[in-house]
C-alpha cells in the first residue's frame, strides 16, 4: 500500500484562455517494491504525473495517499515526503553545483538535517551503490562524462535514502553502454533493497527489458496498465497514440504472418530468441 492516487486531476493555468487539463481522473495504486515503467508521447502527462508523487505539484482535485496517509493533510510534512520519494529529473547533471562530487552528494542528507558525519556516511554508501570509482570522488563533477555525471546526480538522490526512486528519462543523450550501465545499476538497487522504482522512458526496448509493470499515459489518462507483454500486445493502439512496441514484438507478428509458429508475445531479445529457437525445435528441424 505504498502510494495511492484517487481520481487525481491537474489543470494548468486554470480559468484562463490557456487552460489545459494535464491529468484526468487518474486512479493508481503503486505497491512497495514494484518496478514500474511510464511511457507516453511528449505532452501526455508523464512528467506532471510523477511530480505529484512527491508533492512537487499539487493536484487540482483528488487525493494522494503515501503509506496510507493523505499527503494533502495539514499535518503531513512535504519535507519528509521528499526524502522518501526521490525524484531524478531529466538531465539531472545540470543540477550538479558543488566543487567536488562528494560534497554534491552530501548536500541532500545535510539538507534533511543530518550531521556532517552522518551525511558523509550516506554519501559514501550512495556513491558506492552507483558504481563510481573512488578516485573520482574528490574531483569536480564537471570533469566527468555525461553518464558519470548522471550517476552522481542519482547518487545525490539515493543519499537521502528514499523508499521510492522516480527517474525521468535517465538515459536521454547517453551512449548505448552508458544507457545499459545506468539501468543495470537501477535494476540492481531495486533487487537488493526492494526499492520501488518508477522509470519514465521513451525507449520501448528499455522498459520491456527492465520493468515488471507498464503504465501508458495518453492525453492525461492511463491508457494501459499491465505487464510489458500485455501492454505491447496492443501495439496498434500504441502506434495510434504516437508510441510503438519493441522491434522484436513486431518481428513475432511478422513471423506468424509467414506461418512460423512462434509462441507468446516476446518483448525482449531473450524472449524472441527463445521463441524462435523453440519453433524450430518443435518442427523437429535441426538448426545447424
Amino acid at each position, binding site marked *: 500500500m505504498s502510494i495511492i492516487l484517487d481520481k487525481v486531476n491537474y489543470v494548468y493555468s486554470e480559468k484562463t484562455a490557456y487552460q489545459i487539463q494535464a491529468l484526468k481522473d487518474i486512479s493508481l495504486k503503486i505497491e512497495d517494491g514494484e518496478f514500474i515503467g511510464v511511457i507516453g508521447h511528449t505532452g501526455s502527462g508523464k512528467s506532471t504525473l510523477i511530480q505529484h508523487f512527491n508533492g512537487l505539484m499539487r493536484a487540482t482535485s483528488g487525493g494522494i495517499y503515501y503509506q496510507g496517509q493523505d499527503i494533502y493533510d495539514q499535518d503531513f510534512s512535504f519535507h519528509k515526503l521528499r526524502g522518501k520519494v526521490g525524484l531524478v529529473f531529466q538531465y539531472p547533471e545540470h543540477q550538479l553545483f558543488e566543487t567536488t562530487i562528494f560534497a554534491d552528494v552530501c548536500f541532500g542528507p545535510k539538507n534533511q538535517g543530518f550531521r556532517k558525519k552522518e551525511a558523509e556516511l550516506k554519501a559514501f554508501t550512495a556513491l558506492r551503490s552507483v558504481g563510481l570509482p573512488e578516485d573520482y570522488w574528490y574531483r569536480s563533477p564537471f570533469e566527468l562524462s555525461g553518464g558519470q555525471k548522471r550517476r552522481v546526480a542519482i547518487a545525490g538522490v539515493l543519499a537521502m535514502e528514499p523508499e521510492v526512486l522516480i527517474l525521468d528519462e535517465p538515459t536521454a543523450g547517453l551512449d548505448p553502454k552508458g544507457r545499459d550501465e545506468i539501468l543495470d545499476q537501477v535494476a540492481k538497487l531495486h533487487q537488493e533493497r526492494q526499492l520501488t522504482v518508477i522509470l519514465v522512458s521513451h525507449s520501448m526496448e528499455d522498459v520491456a527489458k527492465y520493468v515488471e509493470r507498464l503504465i501508458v499515459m495518453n492525453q492525461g489518462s492511463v491508457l494501459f496498465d499491465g505487464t510489458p507483454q500485455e501492454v505491447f500486445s496492443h501495439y496498434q493502439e500504441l502506434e495510434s497514440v504516437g*508510441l510503438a512496441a519493441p522491434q522484436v514484438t513486431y*518481428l513475432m507478428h511478422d*513471423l506468424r504472418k509467414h506461418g512460423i509458429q512462434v509462441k507468446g508475445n516476446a518483448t525482449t531479445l531473450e524472449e524472441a530468441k527463445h521463441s524462435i529457437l523453440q519453433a524450430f525445435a518443435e518442427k523437429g528441424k535441426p538448426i545447424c
Partner: protein
Amino acid sequence: MKFIEARKLIHEYIRRDEEGNVESILTALDEVDLDVKQGEFVAILGHNGSGKSTLAKHLNVLLRPGGGTLWVDGKDAEDADNLWAIRQNAGMVFQNPDNQIIASVVEEDVAFGPENIGVPTDEIWKRVEKSLKSVGMIQYREHSPNKLSGGQKQRVAIAGVMAMEPKCIILDEPTAMLDPNGRREVLEAVEQLNKEKDVTIILITHYMEEVIYADRVYVMDNGKVVMQGTPRGIFSQVDTLKDYRLDVPQITLLAYELRKEGLQIPEGILTRQELVEAICRLY
C-alpha cells in the same frame, strides 16, 4: 564532388590555471580523416566524449582546426575569410529544440536566418514556404513554437536551416530528447531532404536504428575514426562495436544471437523484413 575533406584534423582543448599555465590538454580530435561527397548521407557514431560533437562543430567552423587541414565546399576552413561562406552552406541542428527557436511565430523563426544574411523580403517568404513544406510543417506557419511537440519544434529548426539553402545539414543528436513519434518525424524529414533536394546530411546519433538508412557510417573513439563503412558492414561487427561502448539495432543483435545458436542467418541483417525472410528460408 567532394563536399568535406578533412586530413589529419586535430583539435585540443587546453585547460589553463589562473596564471595561464597549461594544466591539461585533451585531444578531442586526433588526426581525423573524413570525406563526404555532395548529396551523401553520412552517420557518425561514438560514445559520449569520443569527439563526435567536436568534429561536427568544425564542419561549419564553430571551432577552428588546431592542426591538419579541413576543406568544406571547396573552401579552406582555416582561412577566416571563408567563415561565413562555409556557415551558409553547412547548417547545424542541435539536440535541444528549445535552445534553437527564437521567434514567437513559426514562420518568423524560419525567416530569421535568411533575413540575417540580407535575402530580399519576397525571396525570404518564398524560402520560408518552401522549407516549411519540405519538413511537413507548413500548416503550422502561423502557430507559436511553444505549443509544438518536440518533434515539430525540431522540424521547425531544420526548416530554419533549410531556409538558408545550405548544401549540407549537420545534425548533432537531433532526436535525443524526442519520443518515438518525434524521432520518426525528424528522421523522415531528414531522409526526404537528402533524397529529394540532394542535401548532404551528417547525422550524429546514439540510436543505432537511425543509421540504417545512411550511405556510410563513421565510428569514433578517443578522437579517432576507428571504423568506417556501410551500415551493413559496420553492424556485422557486433563485438567490435561493443568494445567502443556502442550497440547494434535490436534486430541485428537478435540475428547475431540466433547465428550463435547455430541458425544459418547471413551476417549484417539490418531490418525486420530481412530477418523474417532469412528465418522463413530456414524454416
